[in-house]
């Protein structure tokens, strides 16, 4: 599945929908989107990951990037990640940067 990222902002809640594979080649696009959400003053960031097939090392780092870009006061939730993706996030310890939420 080709990578696709979409941003919606509703009432200061930013929702980023991810599709495909988040890796070194696509992380830049995701970072730009996170930057837009931060620029819009979002107080919560929801990352819809139901259609995210794979998360590489660079993809994981993107979650930390999001945390640092948004600041500590912003809740970041990754929603609906598949079990392999969620497991990788947990084992590598990145679940401390974000909230993992079932869909």
């Amino acid at each position, binding site marked *: 599945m080709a990578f696709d990222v979409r941003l919606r902002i509703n009432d200061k809640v930013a929702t980023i929908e991810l599709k495909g594979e988040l890796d*070194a080649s696509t992380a830049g696009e995701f970072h730009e989107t996170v930057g837009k959400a931060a620029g819009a003053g979002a107080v919560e960031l929801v990352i819809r990951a139901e259609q995210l097939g794979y998360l590489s*090392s660079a993809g994981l780092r993107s979650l930390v990037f999001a945390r640092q870009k948004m600041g500590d006061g912003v809740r970041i939730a990754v929603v609906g990640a598949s079990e392999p993706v969620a*497991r990788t996030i*947990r084992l590598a*310890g990145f679940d401390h940067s974000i909230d993992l939420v079932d869909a």
Partner: protein
Amino acid sequence: MTTPDMRERIDGFPTHRIGPYRVRAGRPFPYGATPVPGGVNFSVYSDGATTMSLVLFERGAAQPSAELEFPPEFCIGSVYAMTVFGLDLENLEYGFRADGPFDPARGDRFDAGKVLSDPYARLISGREVWGTEPDWDNIYHYRSQVVNDDFDWGGDQPLRIPAEDLVIYETHVRGFTRHPSSRVSAPGTYAGLREKIPYLRDLGVNCVELLPVFEFDELDNPRTDPVSGERLYNYWGYNTVSFFAPKAGYAATGPFGMQADEFKTLVKELHKAGIEVVLDVVFNHTAEGNEQGPTISFRGLDNATYYMLTPRGEYYNFSGTGNTVNCNHPVVRDFVLSCLRHWVAEYHIDGFRFDLAAILDRAPDGTPLPNPPLLEQLAHDPILRHTKLIAEAWDAAGLYQVGNFPNYGRWSEWNGKYRDTVRRFVKGEPGLVGELATRMAGSPDLYQGRTSSASVNFITAHDGFTLADLVSYNDKHNEANGENNNDGADDNNSWNCGEEGPSASSHVRELRLRQMKNLLTILLTSQGIPMILAGDEVGRTQLGNNNTYCQDNELSWFDWGLVDANAELLGFVRSMIAFRHAHPVLRTSDHPTGTDRVGSGYPDVSWHGVRAWAPDWADHCRVLAMMRCGRHAKSGSVADDHVYVAVNAHWEAHDLELPALPEGQRWHLFADTGTTVHPVGAEPGLQHPWRYHLGAHSAVVLVGRTADRDDHQTQKENHRGF
């Protein structure tokens, strides 16, 4: 004043093209592969090479995708440096190919047929899943990878717990949770160990010492089990392949190249729990072995620089494993120092334990140096300034330096004499009362002029019997190692308590339990840094195998079922550790002198026997009691109780006369290894104020403090009992 325009560097573009790759002259420092804007900077040193190439692979590919020879103008000194632009870091594996003379008699062993691993590689692929058979025809096994050192540490830093306050727990990343009974989500990994942090916290240890975690190859052991025919492993990992890279096979996320993150997360979480991390590091030899060994990296880059060679160009073997790292060569010193700095700065490691550290003070020709530059450099290095440095102060060629390892006021030592003395005393050997006293006081005979933290006290370690086996076996039983029981130490100072191996006799089992408690009581009340072998707190057995370096199975793994099965022993150990933490008088940094230095009316340490104030140093005696005066705690800077520890290694019980306490104080029973242990701070007062009946093969720990209300109650009850 105008502000200079710092928006853009002007070296972020290529100047040369090699095939399809755009490159420019790199920076010689730092060595290894470093991400830079737009590309990766590669830097490698080789003094003897005639040409050097950077070899690039797509991840997992059998053949390289490119070989970029370093142009002559990219070389400064003997360092080859090149920045390559436009690389996909996640799918990149790299190595070097060095051409040069093959003249072993002169020390040169260049082989242009080999792709060499980068000695400074921060990440290694090729063995990502523990025990998985690789393609042995692969031209490049241990593949260097580039890593982004951008972990989010938050506010974490090394903990800097005072050395004298440490309780070290020696464990193996895989063995700690590999057993199915661990019930962690990723058994045998950094993540698995992280899930067991609550157990460590409850146990009370504040430092874990991990057996080697630098990348090694668990499959480099050619032996098989003589009975089952199954493969034997290099399970312990004392055969380093790559010194800057965490073992990928210990990471659940290793297949995704995230072992660095997973390990850092472990360190960060341990720190949050107040637990330091010490790494067991092996700088005395490498996995390249002797002339018959594989060429992985150093041998093909500068053999005579990295290894100690005889005048005929053969490998010296002070390590007992084929080669010896040339630690005091200036280039190698720089390598070792950079490596340790890397682990402290990038991984927040709190300390190192150096395997066969005596080799670190040998000159290139093997002669021990009085003032070895490497050790001096490590002791004074700015990054390592507060890092714990612990030496295994001997090597495999007879250099034994316990007590005189060059220390610069910084180094601690595994105190092998402590281990031997305590083992021999507790098993009942005569003539050891005097030496036991010296060992319990922090071995001032060995470490005069140094703090008592110079002594890392231990009774068991990964190498040798476990505690349960020490009291269950007279002899080693290493048949499963495939060497006809010829491997492993013969001199174990063990006693099986009457029967070799598992016993159905309740008498034998009770005696063994008591002996384990006796040993731990001495360990946790001695001055110096105590170290416990993981699993000893629950009586882990290796069925008499005292050298399980190759056993990746239940023999080595921590069986978590023992937590319930041996709950009594575990409870005892937890209590003893809590007692040590509660009583600073046991953790004083200065050695005791046997004199009253604070005007308390009591010496800082005093020795007793069956009679108070009358220790019996005679050969036949097997009873020793030590009293520590609480007013001397931490050299008189904090207040503590009196602590009295008596050990009876005799096969008969003895009535001990207790030393009198200051007016208004009385003795309270913390633990008797033959009966019970009480919660710290809630110890009941003794029935008899100055006499204690200590059973055969038993130890007792008493606390002398002011009688409180509960005590009066106890006294009344006791009175009624008379």
